[in-house]
């Protein structure tokens, strides 16, 4: 015991903090903080790290009505500190839509859409050589008038709903062509309890002759077959009426004269048949393979390989009946009935996949014959 105490003292002595920031560093830091405080705190978000597939709750009481008491597209862009984009949304080239749909717990409003090159202060042309970008603004409000939480005001571990907002092209499989695969990104701000999301991606006007829609769904930041149905025979995508979350589609009245079938064809060929070089470093293109493989394994009750043994842990429950699971950086809070049907055993068909430099991992839930539910993390391999 004495030896342990001595070792503890030695550790404390050697590992104790003996550095401190110098005054210049702190002054510089305060100056930088002051600068940032004066700037709009928006950051672009891109999809390269995580993918979530979902099933979910309730649905659709769809009704459309004009948006009221919401900001307009130019105002939102202006507030985001993007004057160029504000001007673009105010120009004659922009589509001013201001259409709303109530679905589930949310009211989604498509404010406007505009396409062009260099029309945003935050503009960064596609790496694949498509300088024109399409920008759109969608707001998300609580249908009951309550406030959407501002991410700044909630703790990291608290549950926060996430949304998928993306244009989809009629006649093209939506899981293949959406904001994630079309070099998209978004910025988001919460004003007066309403989320305003500015999205951008490779331009979609070239698809004007095919038709396009703006899809919005809750339950995750990625396209979900649970939220939408794509009819491969007709090429039409629809919001699922049996989706347990919120899902809505807005028709995009693109100008047919701006359609460019040749460019659209070339773009889709590139998108749907990526070169070997692209597949090497394009995480988005790898994700469907990972997900499809996992999905097939789960649906056919095949054993899942790559489970991290230490991650297997029985879940806990809160008073609302939500399941809680955490392992290192993974945290999940999910209603039980979203994971398993009554009497269902084995793996839940709901899972999440995330990626990092070290590869892809899946968060899975399993229920045994005794009803014990465990969470676990599996490292996924690419076929």
């Amino acid at each position, binding site marked *: 015991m004495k030896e342990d105490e*001595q*070792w*503890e*003292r*030695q*550790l*404390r*002595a*050697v*590992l*104790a*903090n*003996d*550095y*401190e*920031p110098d005054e210049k*560093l*702190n002054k*510089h*830091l*305060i100056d*930088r*903080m*002051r600068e*940032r*405080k004066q700037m709009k*705190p928006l950051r672009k978000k891109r999809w390269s790290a995580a993918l979530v597939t979902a099933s979910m709750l309730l649905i659709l009481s769809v009704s459309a009505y004009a948006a009221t008491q919401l900001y307009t597209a130019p105002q939102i862009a202006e507030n985001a500190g993007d004057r160029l984009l504000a001007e673009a949304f105010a120009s004659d080239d922009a589509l001013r839509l201001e259409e709303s749909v109530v679905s589930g717990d949310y009211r989604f409003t498509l404010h406007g859409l505009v396409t062009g090159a260099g029309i945003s202060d935050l503009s960064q042309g596609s790496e694949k050589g498509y300088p024109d970008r399409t920008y759109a603004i969608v707001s998300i409000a609580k249908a009951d008038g309550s406030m959407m939480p501002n*991410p*700044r*005001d*909630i*703790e*990291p*571990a608290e549950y926060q709903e996430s949304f998928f907002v993306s244009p989809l092209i009629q006649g093209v499989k939506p899981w293949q062509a959406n904001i994630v695969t079309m070099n998209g990104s978004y910025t988001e701000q919460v004003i007066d309890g309403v989320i305003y999301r500015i999205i951008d991606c490779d331009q979609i006007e070239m698809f004007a002759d095919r038709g396009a829609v703006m899809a919005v769904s809750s339950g995750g930041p990625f396209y979900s077959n649970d939220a939408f149905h794509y009819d491969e025979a007709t090429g039409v995508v629809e919001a699922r009426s049996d989706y347990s979350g919120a899902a809505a589609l807005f028709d995009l009245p693109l100008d047919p004269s701006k359609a460019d079938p040749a460019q659209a064809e070339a773009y889709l060929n590139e998108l749907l048949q990526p070169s070997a070089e692209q597949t090497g470093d394009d995480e988005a293109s790898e994700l469907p393979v990972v997900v499809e493989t996992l999905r097939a394994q789960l649906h056919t009750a095949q054993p899942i390989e790559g489970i991290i043994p230490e991650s297997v842990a029985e879940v806990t429950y809160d008073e609302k009946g939500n399941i809680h699971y*955490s*392992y*290192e*950086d993974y*945290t999940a809070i999910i209603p039980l009935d979203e994971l398993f049907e009554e009497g269902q055993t084995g793996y839940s068909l709901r899972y999440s996949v995330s990626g990092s*430099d070290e590869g892809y991992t899946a968060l899975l839930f399993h229920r045994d014959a005794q009803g014990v539910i465990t969470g676990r993390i599996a490292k996924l391999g690419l076929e």
Partner: protein
Amino acid sequence: MDIEELADLIAQHGKAIYGFCWKLAGNPVDADDLYQETFLRAVEGRHTLDKTRNPKAYLIAIAVGLHRNHRRKLAWRQKIAPVSRLADQDESQPWAISPHTPEDAALSREQQALLLHAAHQLKDKLRLPLYMYYTAELSVEEIASALRIPQGTVKSRLHKARQLLRKAMEVGSGT
């Protein structure tokens, strides 16, 4: 939170945060970057920094997140710096040559350097709770909350880290 409050926060917790960043980064350049980015993230941040709710643990959690996110990009110069810093250490620093008790005198400067080096070589899984506990002086509960792992896991990782360090010291000193 205004700038003055943030300046207070720096005054109160700057040293602890910086020391933690230093240990984690292993060199002053990256430590400065991580330190600044931690406070900047807190300012612009996604979450409210409530002074009444343990801002030190909150800031350390931000630093850990930044470290994890950027560990590949920042290319920490970790293997050399702790030892070279030790060699430069002013001998008036109390821990360097003035141990708290006679027993602690058993650790020579070389052994201290060896221990620091061994600690720095630990995987993040063990290194983060180690520095959070001994350098930032967070409690097991605070570490568990920041890393979002059970307290028992924090304890077992600390135990494992201590064991590995002791073993490294034994090997390093030829005992």
